[in-house]
């Protein structure tokens, strides 16, 4: 019995010294020992080899389906007016009135959206171009060779038996130190020393958590890093976005108060630095929310607020509509684009499929998380622009930098039905056509249109 305690004690001491010397001290100073970099390079070599093997295997078996990461269909065609005009070519005298062929336009559009639409695919993980040796991404891939299977088996062993326990231990260490550290710092009186210490505690613990996910983060354009009194907006893929951003700077988080473990974390964090936590009832009242955030921003000495205007997690192939509430607060907006490299692990949190715990376990059993973060130049609302237009402007800047598709659809469509007003817009557009509003088309004859094509 005593031996058992002795062994447990030794292991604990060993673990603590590893963590302190190899992880915590470098994290405090923002340095890295380079272990993760070597690991990533080795992984890249293995994955490239696997890709070549798979491609060779596919060439040898031509009958098997080749996985496509392009779309299923090719959409052609212009606006509603152009298409209607072409459909009516057979009866030019009916231009401006209803024609039975009009239904064909809606029919085709409807069928195209059934086969492939722009929105629903954003709420599930994107398919990979080539298998990355994780069981969970194995959708259209099949047995290729013995060597590949052995490597895959080794990968499973390494990920689940070696990396997973290490990562879980590291993550729990990081979180518990965050709670303890912020609690301790909270006892100090308000001073610049307290702020500095609080930042140090936050940064160190977030870096430990990032190590717990084997996260490699590349920050670009650090000169545009969000300043105090500003608002940082970013595209949202996963709750881990917070850890990713907080590795390089301190932010004031905004969110709902939770119970349980997360609640304890929130309460201790707010003692050392002013985060903005809302009760559930307060969140519904937009004015309260805006007022508190405005208050925070106006005090120019407070940390920049971190907001995800999409309001929900999207799968990192596109940026969906930004809710204008964040852009009504005023102050300078610092846009940030986050793009995950899907080869090493899919970071998207599909909240309808996985709860938080199983999601974190999946994260910790992926190869790694490799992410690029671009800090973009600050933006402010311009004269004659309203909050929605400003939001769209910021959104397209982020989408452009991150190589993501800029969509106008609301991320809330994950859970809710689409608003009726969008259907009414389509009906209004069509009504304008058959009541003959566009006279320009009537002058062009059918033969001219045919020659153009």
């Amino acid at each position, binding site marked *: 019995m005593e031996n058992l305690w002795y062994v447990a004690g030794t292991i604990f001491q060993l673990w603590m010294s590893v963590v302190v010397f190899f992880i915590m001290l470098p994290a405090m100073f923002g340095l890295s020992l380079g272990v993760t970099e070597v690991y990533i390079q080795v992984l890249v070599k293995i994955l490239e080899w696997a890709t070549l093997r798979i491609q060779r295997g596919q060439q040898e078996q031509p009958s098997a389906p080749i996985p496509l990461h392009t779309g299923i269909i090719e959409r052609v065609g212009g606006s509603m007016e152009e298409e209607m005009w*072409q459909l009516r070519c057979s009866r030019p005298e009916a231009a401006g009135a209803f024609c039975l062929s009009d239904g064909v336009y809606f029919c085709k559009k409807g069928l195209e959206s*059934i086969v492939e639409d722009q929105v*629903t695919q954003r709420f599930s993980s994107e398919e990979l171009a080539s298998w990355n040796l994780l069981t969970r991404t194995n959708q*259209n891939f099949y047995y290729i060779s013995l060597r590949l299977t052995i490597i895959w088996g080794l990968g499973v062993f390494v990920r689940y038996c070696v990396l997973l326990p290490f990562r879980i231990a590291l993550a729990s260490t990081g979180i518990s130190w965050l709670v303890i550290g912020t609690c301790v710092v909270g006892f100090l009186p308000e001073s610049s020393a307290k702020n500095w210490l609080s930042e140090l505690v936050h940064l160190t613990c977030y870096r430990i958590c990032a190590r717990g996910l084997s996260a490699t983060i590349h920050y670009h354009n650090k000169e545009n890093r969000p300043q105090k009194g500003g608002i940082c907006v970013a595209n949202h893929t996963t709750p881990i976005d917070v850890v990713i951003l907080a590795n390089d700077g301190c932010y004031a988080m905004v969110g709902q108060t939770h119970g349980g473990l997360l609640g304890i974390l929130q309460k201790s964090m707010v003692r050392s630095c002013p985060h903005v936590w809302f009760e559930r009832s307060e969140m519904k009242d937009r004015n309260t929310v805006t007022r508190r955030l405005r208050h925070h921003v106006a005090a120019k000495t407070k940390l920049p607020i971190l907001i995800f205007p999409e309001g929900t997690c999207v799968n990192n192939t596109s940026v969906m509509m930004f809710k204008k509430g964040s852009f009504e607060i005023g102050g300078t907006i610092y846009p940030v684009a986050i793009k995950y490299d899907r080869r090493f692990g899919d970071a998207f949190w599909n909240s309808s499929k996985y709860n938080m715990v199983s999601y974190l376990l999946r994260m910790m059993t992926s190869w790694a998380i490799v992410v690029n973060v671009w800090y973009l130049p600050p933006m402010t609302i311009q004269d004659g622009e309203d909050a929605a237009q400003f939001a769209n402007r910021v959104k397209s800047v982020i989408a452009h930098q991150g190589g993501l598709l800029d969509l106008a659809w609301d991320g809330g469509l994950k859970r809710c039905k689409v608003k009726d007003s969008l259907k009414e817009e389509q009906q209004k557009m069509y009504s304008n056509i058959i009541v003959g509003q566009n006279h320009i088309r009537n002058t062009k004859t059918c033969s001219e249109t045919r020659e153009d094509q």
Partner: protein
Amino acid sequence: MGSRASTLLREEEIEEIKKETGFSHSQITRLYSRFTSLDKGENGTLSREDFQRIPELAINPLGDRIINAFFPEGEDQVNFKGFMRTLAHFRPIEDNEKNKNPPATEPLNSRTNKLLFAFRLYDLDRDDKISRDELLQVLRMMVGVNISDDQLGSIADRTIQEADTNGDTCISFQEFMKVLEKVDVEQKMSIRFLH
């Protein structure tokens, strides 16, 4: 390490669908992935709610009519075969010439069958005639609240007058085909599927 998408879809089923609809093997597998991603209840069939979850379809004025085309008379669920059969109407026509063995019966994506699909959009009660009431209802779906009842009524009357040749104040399928005879149905009612 099997292909997860097609473990539930047997090879014989793929062959059957290939013969009936003319889609290629890879197209059928891709469309099966799409079918399963729409099937939130994971019971192998789609209901009307599953279709309405697609935002682009929900804002389509004729969305409900298109969804209805997938469901046979009186049924609320459509399986993968039925799904493919309906989609087959929108295969491009020139693909048929690539087949070495043309099917004995008329292919689903022939010009006539495409026009029949469009006809059924208007024919609400499936009695092979488009009555004035049915035309009015479909028109109302397409224009919403933006046109008055009177104006819509006169549009419907004019349309029927121009199309009706046998004087029964309804549009039959033959009359419908005559109205659309110059429309490039091959292009306008085909979806370009990638291989």
